[in-house]
């Protein structure tokens, strides 16, 4: 009886502690599962602008001319002539790809996708360091939640009946999938 109380208390406290992170990881999990269909980290907006024929000149001069014609009052991070007919002007979270000498500009803005960037940053452990340790602790927490969760309910709805079959079904799905697709 004492053992079951310990199991319930452990499950309850770890469950409360990691509930928030589980929700964040679940949101990120769905977001990155569909990475082929959308960009879960950035919202990228493209516009095409014509600034007119540009004169000959050094990349920095051409970049300044393009920015002036577009009314952008910002110092570029860098200006690179990728080849004879293409110039790239890099601004903060914005890239202008200029066709030379015609002045066809593809203006690409990138901004972090609100909330998703942050949850993906955590879920995919981009930060490393401290987060690696905390994420490991979370994994151990999940393991404890799974193991204690199995034994919370006794009787027909627990491992003695329904619970056992659900446990087997949940385990079977990944193994059947692996058998069909990988093995």
């Amino acid at each position, binding site marked *: 009886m004492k053992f079951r109380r310990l199991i319930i208390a452990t499950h309850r406290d770890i469950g409360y502690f990691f509930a928030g992170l589980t929700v964040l990881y679940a949101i990120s999990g769905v977001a990155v599962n569909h*990475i082929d269909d959308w960009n*879960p980290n950035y919202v990228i907006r493209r516009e095409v602008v014509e600034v007119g024929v540009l004169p000959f000149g050094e990349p920095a001069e051409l970049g300044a001319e393009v920015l002036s014609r577009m009314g952008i009052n910002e110092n570029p991070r860098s200006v690179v002539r990728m*080849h004879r007919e293409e110039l790239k002007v*890099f601004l903060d979270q914005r*890239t202008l790809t200029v066709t030379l000498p015609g002045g066809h500009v593809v203006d690409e803005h*990138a901004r972090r996708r609100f909330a998703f960037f942050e949850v993906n940053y955590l879920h995919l452990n981009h930060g490393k360091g401290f987060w690696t340790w905390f994420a490991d602790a979370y994994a151990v927490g999940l393991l404890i939640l799974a193991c204690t969760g199995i034994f919370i309910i006794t009787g027909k709805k627990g491992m003695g009946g329904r619970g056992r079959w659900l446990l087997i079904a949940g385990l079977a799905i990944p193994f059947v999938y692996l058998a069909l697709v990988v093995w």
Partner: protein
Amino acid sequence: MRAPNEAKFRGGNDMKRFLILSFAVIATMAAPVNAGDSESYGDGVTLDEAVAIDVLLENPNDYVGRKVRVDGVITAVCKKRGCWMQVTDQESGNGVRIKVEDGVIVFPYTSMGREAQAEGIFEAIKLTPEQIEARTAAAHSHEEGATCDKDGPKSSSAGAGCDAPAVNEYVYMIRGTGAVIKG
């Protein structure tokens, strides 16, 4: 004898203390190391001298299989996964792609235009006729990274997307082990 409500209140204070202590520990452990204006990725940069990108591309056979470091401006980054970046020589516009294993190193999309030092093993990937055809098609549609990692992220051609710089049926890239991106 202490009243039950008082005991509950004391328990609440203990939890508050625990929370404050936890946040203090996390803030201390997670605080970014002040490394000036540069950010290090993976193993960072260990080689003292960089090979000029132009020299690398003019004499690729001298460097294939060797660990090299290149310096330049970041002119493209994998939009969705941050699994590659292109480092370009600002003078000539010649660039080389730095491909890293998905998730191990993630280059921020917003780092475009910044100066970077990157190193890893220099590789030459011979393009198949299908890949050459795909590149020709993508050149018309301007679709960046259209076949990036088409054969899987761990395939030998991983990172040789449609827009990776190619010279005479070869895509030259660096299997990146680390990089330093300047602020």
